């Protein structure tokens, strides 16, 4: 590992140590977990704090997650951030609830869950459907064939939220547009579809072959496969969570129309910053369009011509003129 050793010993300069526990998949998934990592990176740089990231194991139980959180808080990390709803579990006895109870003086945050409540717990959630709405609109505006696709890494409710927003956005632009959804896996195989680029590519090629010309992927590590398919077919793809134009291999950049930004990095950074300034607020903070918690990326310049239209939609959502559904029409 090329990381510097844990700096507990080097002077009393840093007293605040930030702990972060990843979801399965961990750092390097180029989307969700990496976004959290980017936030932590900023914390380290901008706030000059000590940080510690712990990875999750495959097949771990709620109790392992609790152990991880407790290990962080008992080792003096405060605040502690749990990345992913897997840390929620039961709202009274799940890992984050128990950890918050066991370490009442530590401030916790959990990402993607609003069901667990504790006085020392902040719930950082995102309006993914709103961001997805905008990229859905972008897809519809760019589509020449009138057919666009959606690929989810795993058939679970969180990902269905992306689908719902995307469909709504596309239909808002073109009521008769065809949106093909597909999922790479289910919880049956522990959502292996987040880790299988080959499957992502196959699914995307299928969509392109059947006439879609823009595909939005919310498939974590399988997303590269989708980009590769777009590259091979000369079509467009939409990234997710972080600005994937920035993180992708150079030859894949030109197929990335935009990315739906889920600013986990912002949320992480903001939470740590607020906490440091004594502005910790327990309970849910929704990172939506208004709060710049979700959005879309513009790097690559492919959206330059339609940016104004998208911003219009954005404003309407912020103003409450458009309510974006968070469940797809057909379950």
């Amino acid at each position: 590992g090329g990381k510097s050793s844990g700096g507990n010993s080097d002077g009393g300069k840093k007293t605040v140590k930030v702990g972060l526990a990843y979801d399965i998949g961990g750092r390097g998934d180029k989307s969700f977990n990496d976004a959290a990592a980017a936030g932590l990176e900023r914390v380290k740089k901008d706030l000059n704090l000590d940080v510690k990231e712990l990875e999750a194991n495959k097949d771990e139980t709620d109790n392992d997650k609790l152990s991880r959180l407790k290990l962080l808080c008992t080792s003096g990390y405060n605040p502690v951030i749990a990345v992913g709803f897997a840390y929620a579990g039961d709202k009274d006895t799940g890992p984050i609830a128990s950890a918050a109870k066991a370490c009442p003086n530590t401030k916790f945050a959990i990402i993607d869950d609003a069901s667990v409540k504790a006085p020392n717990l902040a719930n950082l959630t995102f309006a993914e459907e709103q961001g997805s709405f905008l990229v859905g609109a972008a897809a519809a505006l760019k589509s020449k064939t009138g057919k666009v696709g959606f690929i989810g890494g795993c058939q679970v409710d969180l990902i269905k939220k992306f689908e719902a927003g995307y469909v709504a956005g596309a239909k808002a632009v073109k009521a008769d547009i065809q949106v093909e959804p597909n999922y790479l896996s289910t919880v049956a195989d522990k959502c292996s579809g987040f880790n299988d680029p080959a499957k992502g590519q196959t699914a995307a090629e299928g969509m392109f072959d059947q006439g879609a010309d823009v595909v939005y992927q919310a498939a974590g590590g399988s997303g590269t496969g989708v980009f590769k398919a777009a590259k091979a077919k000369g079509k467009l793809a939409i990234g997710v969570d972080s600005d994937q134009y920035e993180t992708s291999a150079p030859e894949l950049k030109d197929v990335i129309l935009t990315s739906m930004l889920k600013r986990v990095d912002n949320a992480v950074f903001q939470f740590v910053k607020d906490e440091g300034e004594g502005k910790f607020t327990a309970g849910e903070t929704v990172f939506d369009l208004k709060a710049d918690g979700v959005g879309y990326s513009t790097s690559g310049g492919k959206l330059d011509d339609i940016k104004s239209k998208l911003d219009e939609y954005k404003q309407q959502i912020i103003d409450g003129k458009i309510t974006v559904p968070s469940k797809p029409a057909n379950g």
Partner: protein
Amino acid sequence: MTADAVLTPTPGASAPAPTRGRRFSLPVLLLAIAGALVALAAVRTLTGANDLTSNGAVRAALQSAIPIGLAGLGGLWAERAGVVNIGLEGQLIFGTWFGAWAGYHWGPWVGVLAAIAGGALGGLLHALATVTFGVDHIVSGVAITILAGGVARYLSQLAFKGLPGGGVTQSPPVPELPRWSVPGVSSLDGLERKHWFLLSDLAGILRGALTEVSALTVIAALLVPLTFWVLWRTPFGLRLRSCGENPKAAESLGVNVYRYKYYGVVISGALAGLGGAFLSMVASTIYREGQTGGRGYIGLAAMIFGNWRPGGLASGALLFGYTDALQLRGGSKSVHALLLFLALLLLAVGVWQLVRRRLAVGAIAVVVALLVGVWYATTDSIPGEFVQAAPHITTLVVLALASQRLRMPAADGQRYRRGG
């Protein structure tokens, strides 16, 4: 697996009927393939599920079948030498990792070699445990799979963390292997898009199989006949197979049984390693933890499905890859269309059985065919979960129907001690 021994007590009693005389002759085989093709074309035309025979579906089916087929070939080599290799999954993992690692640093071809070496190393470990130390084959295989997961992650920690795009769970992007096309075939494009009965289907299949083919796909496809040739047409293969059929006899004729078992298992690992390379360097251009997704086991199932023969194994892998590709590409629509295909197939089998006066089997097949037909007619999609399980259910059903006609190497899975 001793329990099997008593289920078919002593030779004779309730043992399965000998399988002789049921290997298909070439014309019969071609006829069957042609029949299936016509049926498929008909179903496509009827249902409008054009993806059934599209070039993309065919390519995806190949793509999905090849790692399974390579794992299956690996299983074949080991089991023909009498060793069950359930550690194929672990050897696939080694393949994905080493392929990506060496591919990243020294180019794709070195990656392929490294993947083969990595898989072979896993095979060597299995051979050491099972052949030299006489450990139960399943036990050793399971241990190797557990080990491979840990080793890959540990090595990623050392080798990928800190590289651009790399981490404990994935490698940086790996350069691609070359892809080739047979000249002229891509011009069938127009014909395929006409959606004519049979003609367009053929065009789609040819395009899928002969254009934009990765070098590894070609190698993998060649390995099937090569395996057949080596195992069935050379002295080396004869000796290797004799270790799986009757090692005592082989030993009495001066064959060094241990050595040939080692060969078989190490080659088995190497083939699985190549399958891993395909996953991390062709099917995707990146190593990811968990990428193998149980393909090693499916490969084993394909091998059993194929009756421990390279050709049968390849068809098993293709069948699995095809259902998998369809469900991935078209979601439930294509799989739904496959219901109709299944209904037709069952109906044909049923009628055939009725004609042959095997009334019970025939009646059951016809009834099931009708039920499937009704299912097709009354729905327009299948729940995603069942679509995803389709390949596994298919495998199980086929095994249940055919396993009594399968013939594994007689000494497969048994511990062998020299002079014992």
